């Protein structure tokens, strides 16, 4: 325990005050000769016997009251003694890590946690004797002021003065690692100290690992966070599925309410020139998705922002979040097959009809299906298809396989109808070309010689998953009577996810597989549709439609990036080559490079919240929206006991009080002391009353 005003402890001498006051204010006795003095003596003795307890109680209570009063004025700071003292110099190395993540910008009564932490950090940036210090500003990427600890405290403080919280999350582990490297390089006999000034958000700190630090490092953790900080933030803005021109689009806004009460939230969505209002009730401590719909009239990239209205909270940085939507025209499916385009009872015909079942009034289908011969499958041909469907493609060439794998990695969905033995070879080659980015749950094999795949029916359908979920309780009635033929045998692969097998046949072979590959996905229907009864079933069109929606909707959302973090995305194929592309609104928003016939956009440190676009001329080819990491919105702090567990046996002192609201918490003992003092005085009155004095 320490004291804010230790000098006031000298006032503890006042404990003798009651006795002194009693002695000083004792009336000077008047001498009086009395013949009956023995009776006075007896009376006094009798009274003393009766009041001795009272007198002791009164003296005790008065002394205690004064001691408590002195204690209160000295402002005791409860808690353990810090391991690292700002005033303690000497031979050692001290690394001070200051959290400059977005959450440090959260304000209580107008004062941000960062501003509370700045003087606290400055206190520890002292050098004297052989003490050398360094400052690490910890955000998404930790940045040390010097490469090694230095005695140039002035420069460290100067840098500290310029620092401010950024719109990024705290990469704590990177900061610890960096500090560990510096401390490890110090001489073994030197004292090693690590001071971390942070708001100790639960979301960042629960995975902290101090093992990179030398064992003898003394770790002082200073919290400037306040658990009472209530915050509401926009965590995500997205449009599930594919945004298409002229088709109603649902935009979801995920709002996190990290306060203690439910909140009525209003969000203003600005998309292009349109403004929409979304409202909803957010329960406390949770994130809630509220949504609205709008119909994009023009294709192309739509940018906008979501903004919380009429919200009083601690952190303003997450009250606004920009976003970008890629509104595509009506989809075009690329059907790669060597079967004839004539309307015959072929698998590809059934597939084509199921993919585009609706015919528009002008006689043209709303969805275009373009047939492509496998030999003609190249980059240009693939560029026009939003979904690539392979049905009886025969043996594909290696370039075609590589192209398909590359397209999948960049987010292009592929649907493979595996009916022939050649398809087993194609799928094996595709898996090899995709590498680690695709892990098929099963390995497809040609049926064994003499084995006829016929009369198979579906089992183990995952009815809660798309596409089967659309049938609800009538799933068995709709699909249970279907019989399948053809297709490939399959066996379980070790590295894949069993959950990717959505349905199996009665012979235990996989019937339907959906797996991801990079940003895209691959769906495999293991049957010869022409030999199966499903095309004649009314369930075929909705089943295939749901499956296609799932494949196209699972494209990883690459348009939302956390500020301050590294970013690497493949541009869509229509972006062409890197030459002639420009970045807006800032040119230094990363680099555009040609890689494997595609363009990659790499940005080591994504910029502050905003929308960044790749353009060729005036046309926007791709856009990303940067924003504050959702981890930063939850301002709840970690418990001290968790910190001790994370320390792994190292010497750690967690100062939950710190310099901010925690300080109040730590410094509240004086109020209790005053209350106790008052209680003592009231008790004194009570004792006097009880003894009828």
């Amino acid at each position, binding site marked *: 325990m320490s004291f804010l005003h230790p000098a006031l402890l000298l006032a503890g001498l006042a404990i003798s005050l009651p006795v002194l006051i009693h002695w000083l204010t*004792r*009336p*000077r*006795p*008047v*001498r*009086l*000769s*009395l*013949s*009956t*003095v*023995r*009776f*006075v*003596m*007896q*009376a*006094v003795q*009798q*009274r003393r016997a009766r009041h001795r307890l009272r007198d002791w109680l009164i003296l005790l209570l008065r002394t205690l009251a004064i001691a408590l009063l002195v204690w209160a004025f000295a402002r005791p700071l409860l808690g353990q003694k810090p391991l690292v003292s700002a005033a303690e110099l000497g031979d050692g190395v001290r690394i001070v890590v200051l959290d400059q993540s977005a959450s440090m910008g959260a304000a209580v009564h107008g004062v941000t946690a960062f501003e509370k932490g700045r003087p606290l950090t400055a206190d520890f940036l002292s050098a004297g004797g052989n003490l050398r210090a360094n400052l690490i500003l910890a955000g998404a990427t930790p940045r040390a002021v010097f490469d090694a600890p230095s005695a140039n405290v002035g420069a460290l403080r100067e840098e500290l003065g310029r620092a401010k919280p950024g719109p990024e999350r705290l990469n704590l582990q990177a900061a610890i690692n960096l500090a560990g490297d510096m401390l490890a390089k110090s001489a073994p006999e030197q004292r090693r100290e690590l001071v971390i000034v942070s708001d100790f958000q639960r979301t960042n700190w629960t995975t902290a690992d101090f093992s990179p630090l030398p064992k003898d490092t003394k770790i002082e953790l200073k919290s400037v966070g306040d658990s009472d900080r209530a915050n509401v933030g926009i965590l995500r803005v997205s449009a599930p599925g594919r945004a298409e021109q002229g088709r109603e689009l649902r935009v979801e806004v995920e709002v996190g309410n990290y306060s203690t009460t439910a909140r009525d939230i209003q969000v203003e969505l600005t998309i292009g020139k349109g403004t929409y209002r979304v409202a909803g009730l957010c329960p406390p401590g949770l994130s809630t998705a509220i949504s609205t719909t709008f119909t994009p009239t023009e294709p192309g990239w739509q940018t906008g922002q979501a903004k919380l209205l009429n919200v009083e909270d601690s952190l303003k940085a997450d009250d606004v979040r920009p976003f970008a939507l890629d509104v595509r025209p009506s989809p075009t499916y690329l059907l790669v097959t060597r079967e004839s385009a004539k309307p015959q009872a072929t698998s590809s015909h059934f597939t084509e009809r199921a993919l585009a079942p609706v015919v528009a009034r002008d006689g043209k289908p709303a969805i275009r299906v373009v047939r492509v011969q496998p030999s003609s499958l190249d980059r240009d041909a693939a560029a026009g298809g939003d979904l690539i469907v392979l049905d009886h493609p025969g043996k594909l060439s290696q370039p075609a396989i590589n192209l398909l794998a590359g397209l999948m990695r960049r987010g292009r969905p592929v649907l493979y109808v595996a009916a022939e033995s050649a398809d087993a070879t194609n799928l094996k080659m595709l898996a090899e070309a995709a590498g680690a980015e695709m892990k098929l749950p099963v390995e497809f094999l040609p049926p064994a010689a003499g084995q006829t795949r016929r009369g198979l029916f579906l089992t183990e359908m995952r009815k809660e998953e798309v596409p089967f979920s659309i049938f609800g309780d009538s799933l068995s009635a709709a699909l249970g009577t279907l019989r399948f033929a053809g297709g490939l045998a399959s066996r379980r692969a070790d590295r894949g996810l069993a959950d990717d097998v959505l349905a199996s046949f009665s012979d235990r072979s996989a019937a339907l597989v959906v797996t991801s590959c990079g940003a895209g996905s691959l769906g495999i229907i293991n049957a010869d549709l022409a030999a199966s009864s499903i095309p004649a079933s009314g369930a075929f069109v909705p089943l295939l439609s749901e499956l296609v929606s799932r494949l196209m909707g699972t494209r990883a959302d690459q348009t939302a990036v956390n500020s301050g973090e590294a970013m690497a995305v493949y541009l869509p194929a229509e972006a062409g080559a890197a030459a002639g592309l420009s970045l807006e609104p800032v040119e230094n928003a990363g680099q555009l490079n040609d890689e494997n016939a595609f363009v990659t956009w790499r940005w080591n440190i994504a910029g502050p919240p905003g929308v960044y676009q790749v353009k060729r001329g005036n046309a926007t080819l791709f856009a990303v929206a940067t924003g504050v990491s959702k981890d930063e919105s939850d301002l709840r702090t970690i418990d001290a006991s968790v910190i001790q567990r994370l320390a792994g046996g190292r010497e750690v002192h967690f100062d939950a009080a710190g310099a901010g609201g925690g300080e109040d918490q730590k410094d509240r003992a004086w109020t209790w002391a005053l209350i106790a003092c008052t209680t003592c005085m009231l008790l004194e009155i009570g004792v006097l009353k009880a003894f009828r004095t």
Partner: protein
Amino acid sequence: MSQTLSTPRSPFLDLKALSALAHMRFVTRHQIDGAYSGRHRSRQQGGAAEFADYREYVEGEDLRRLDWKVLARTGRAYVRLFQDETNLLCTLAIDASGSMLFGGHANYSKLRHVQWLATAFSHVISRQQDQVGLAVLSDGLADLRPPGSRSAHVQGIQQAIETLETKPATDLATGLRDLFGRLSRRGVLVLMSDFLVEDLEPVFNSLRLFRHRHWEVVCLHIIHPEEERLPEGLAYRFEGLENDGRIDASPGEVRKLYEDRFAAHCATVREMSLAAGCDYRRVSTATPYLETLGGFLVERAG
């Protein structure tokens, strides 16, 4: 008479005031022994004083007491009994301990009051031709003047009363025992004391000696009003008058306890006096001594 002229009158003797008590006499309640014939009933029977009773003649008795008239009338021999009357031998025993010096704020001590009272007593007793003596008790029997009735004797007693001096130590019981040994004839013992002693029992044991020898004992309990309750004020350093120490106390805190204890002391003195067959009278210095004496004499006269 010449002696009277040559000896100055005691300042405690106010003849003018005492003239109000001229018609009063000190009457004993018990039969007493006296040196001379007087007005008091003697413990002796005989003589030709006051007829008391008849008793059958016993052979060998003095025939002069035989009632011949009754013998002649009834044939039976009866002896006439007469109550002898004698004079009073009164010894004034004055407690001259240090506590008697307490005079309170008015500086009118118990001793002073006793001096007035004892002087008046001696005057009244001598005036009715009785004998009066004086015993001064402090740490023992400090002074003894056996009963006498001559004017010079009385004046000597009054002078001794005038010049009474106290001693810090007190041993009332020893003084009384010494007195008992020194007085050979029965009489009346008037003890004037505040009875502020460590132990009352020895005192009353001594008094019981007197009572066993048929002395009439009168205990005058001298009390100063300021002894009955403590003075007002925040703090006092009370100092004893008989080397019994001192103590600082706030009267307010111990007043009630003190009053209870003093009242208990007074009650004890009274009870022990009565139990010992003594006459008890509480005498407050706040009451004029003439009033006290007058009341006492009236009560005695019945």
